[in-house]
């Protein structure tokens, strides 16, 4: 093939450009630690990384949801434990009082303490987490349990005369949180689930114990009857505590699952878009070497001319 002068220079230029762009590419890879500078270099990999990143973002979101849920759950647990303690105390006191040797004035003292325990339970039912009431269902703004004209109300409805329909509708007010794809946890226990409704609700039950204790003479049968009802309530509180404990365990399990998944995703992303630094440096060195040789060869070959040998 006949070679013309412009071919020679153009080819030299093309070769220099090619090896120079390789130097630029590999040095960019070394500098950023990433395999690609723009999406179009490898759309498939880029798409995969992006969907993995979306998944990663979702997991981060679930983590923050779980974190928030934990605060609410642990506050609920603390309140329930307090209620449980108050219960124990009421039980102790009322069984003490059943002893016939206890005098009326002693019983009065016991009544005052039981009354205090009841107030303690009410205040626990009205406890807050981050400024929101825990046991009021969708009513998070106002204390759910309130005394109005001597009667206790839940969210404005009198508890002792509440119908089952009203009760069910209150209990169904669940604040649900997504903690993992498709997995929801309901955070709220309604105060009604703890104290029950109707005439035998917990607070009425306590009131009845108090009034029995104030009777002279003490009707131990009647009192025993009420204490039995109290025992049922006690079992119920324990059940709620177990439920909350189970929720905590479930959250823990989900956290460890999500952590594993996140690690796996990070590894996958890194595998696709990160470059092995030794390999990158080696590639850079090779490109540099090629560039050097191209420059040296091109520099020499375009200088050659017959003119140097003509006299």
């Amino acid at each position, binding site marked *: *093939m*006949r*070679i*013309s*002068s*412009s*071919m020679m220079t*153009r*080819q030299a230029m*093309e070769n220099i450009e090619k090896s120079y762009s390789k130097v630029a590419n590999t040095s960019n890879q070394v500098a950023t630690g990433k395999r690609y500078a*723009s*999406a*179009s*270099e*490898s*759309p498939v990999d*880029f*798409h995969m990384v*992006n*969907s993995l990143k*979306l998944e990663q*973002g979702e997991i981060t*979101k679930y983590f*923050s*949801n779980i974190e*928030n*849920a934990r605060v*609410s759950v642990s506050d609920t647990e603390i309140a329930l434990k307090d209620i449980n303690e108050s219960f124990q105390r009421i039980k102790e006191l009322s069984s003490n009082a059943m002893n016939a040797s206890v005098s009326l004035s002693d019983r009065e003292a016991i009544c005052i303490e039981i009354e205090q325990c009841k107030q303690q339970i009410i205040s626990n039912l009205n406890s807050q987490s*981050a400024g*929101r009431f825990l046991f*009021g*269902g*969708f*009513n*998070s*703004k*106002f204390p*759910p349990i309130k005394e109005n004209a001597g009667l206790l109300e839940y*969210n*404005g409805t009198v508890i002792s005369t509440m119908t089952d329909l009203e009760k069910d509708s209150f209990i169904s*007010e669940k*604040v*649900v*949180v*997504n903690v993992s*794809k*498709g997995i929801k946890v309901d*955070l709220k226990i309604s105060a009604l689930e703890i104290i029950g409704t109707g005439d035998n609700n917990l607070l009425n039950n306590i009131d009845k114990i108090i009034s029995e204790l104030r009777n002279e003479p003490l009707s131990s049968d009647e009192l025993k009857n009420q204490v039995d009802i109290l025992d049922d309530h006690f079992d119920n509180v324990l059940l709620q505590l177990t439920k909350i404990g189970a929720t905590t365990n479930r959250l823990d399990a989900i956290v460890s699952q999500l952590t594993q998944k996140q690690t796996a995703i990070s590894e996958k992303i890194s595998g696709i878009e990160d470059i092995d630094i030794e390999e990158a440096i080696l590639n850079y060195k090779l490109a540099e070497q090629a560039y050097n040789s191209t420059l040296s060869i091109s520099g020499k070959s375009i200088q050659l*001319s*017959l*003119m140097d040998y*003509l006299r």
Partner: protein
Amino acid sequence: MSNFYGLELASKSLYASQKAIETTAHNIANVNTEGYSRQVVELEAVVNYNGLIYDSKNARNVGSGVVISNIEQVRNEFYDKLYRKEISISSELTSKNQAYSYIEEIMKSSSDSNITNDITSLFNSMEKLSLDSENMILREQVRQDAILLTDNLNTTAENLYQFQSQLNNNVIALTGQINDMANEVASLNDMIYKYELSGNKANDLRDQRNLLVDQISEKIGVTTSEGADGTFKVLINGFSLVDHKTVNQITLKQDITNPVTNEKYSSLYWGSTNTKVNIQSGEMKALTDMRDGNSVDRIGVNYIIGKLDNLAGSLVTEFNAINRAGYTLPYGSSSSETGIDFFNAANTHAFNISISSELEESGANIAASSQLISDFSNWGNNENLQSFMNLRESDSITFGSESIGDFESYIENTYTQISFATGFAASRKASQDSIVSYVTNQKDSVSGVNLDEEMLNLSRYQKSYQAAAKLMAVIDEMLQTLLNSF
């Protein structure tokens, strides 16, 4: 036979050598001229008066010396045509690649501040809000994220529209250039034709014309044909742009209207017949494809804006439907209401999507509750926010006949389509460039000047000039000898 015949012979030889040296000089001078084809002198022995080169029998007639029969341009028309075809594809791909890269940049598909992330942030804020739905700070966060999303959609669409009208401006400018160059080719045709009527070769004018046609084919793919009578045609898809001395001007007609912005864009028409110019390749093809392309295999600005519009439209529809079903939080003197829009229902395109006036007023108008909020009830109700969460998890959202799937993947897929198009154009351009480089080399191999060769020629013709001069001196001496003997 005259005594002075030898002088005549020597002068012919001197003249030929001189011309050859001048041609060599012309070649050397134009070694770097774009489009220049090297020229060679064609020498021919002169036939003497009686039609014989020499009469060996009588030794009466020897040869009559040398004459330059032609100064010929060395070129291969096959490679010229091939070059034009390949360069016009190459320049189309170059412009396409540039345009796609620019669109990639507009969409910021590889950075962290893009539409996908805005949608993710909006949903994440809603998720946070669902834990504490009466918290005004969290509601404000949702509102801000919604504004960020609409702003980003607006800016992206706005930039795309600007790019589209910039493409249109380029089409207009390019059409002007093509017409100008066509005029130049026509006037060169005339000059070459007249010059060559006398049997001469208009070498340098031909080079100019070839270069000009090469340049035209970068802008719009053309073919050429030269008739036996020396008339030259430049054709776009078989329709002549230049026919010898006449030019068929390309005119512009604003016959494309953007349905959203009502901006008008121009198409190319033949001035003479008022029919559409069928653009096959070249930069013009890239510009019009990018400007008007609206299908998967012809991804242009319209296609991408269409995708963004679908996204915006479905965001408005879906978010409003959910927000309308729920109840807002009471604030100031407003009570809890239902039927409130999230986005402004009147603005369903990417360039104008905006949050509703109610949401503009307060984040309280995010309908988190599924029931009326009053007195004791439903302040913490987040059931309607759950519908938003379900929307996020849903992967079967549709908008009109378009299947959106889920919002984030929909926009991600659009990004991927663009980067595929960019990558495809880039890799096709790379292989096209190597074809162009091959053809250029072939063309150059035939037509390019080699300085070493010219140096050799220079020495060769210098030697022949010296010899001819010596001949002249010898004949002069011969004549002196003859004249002095009397």
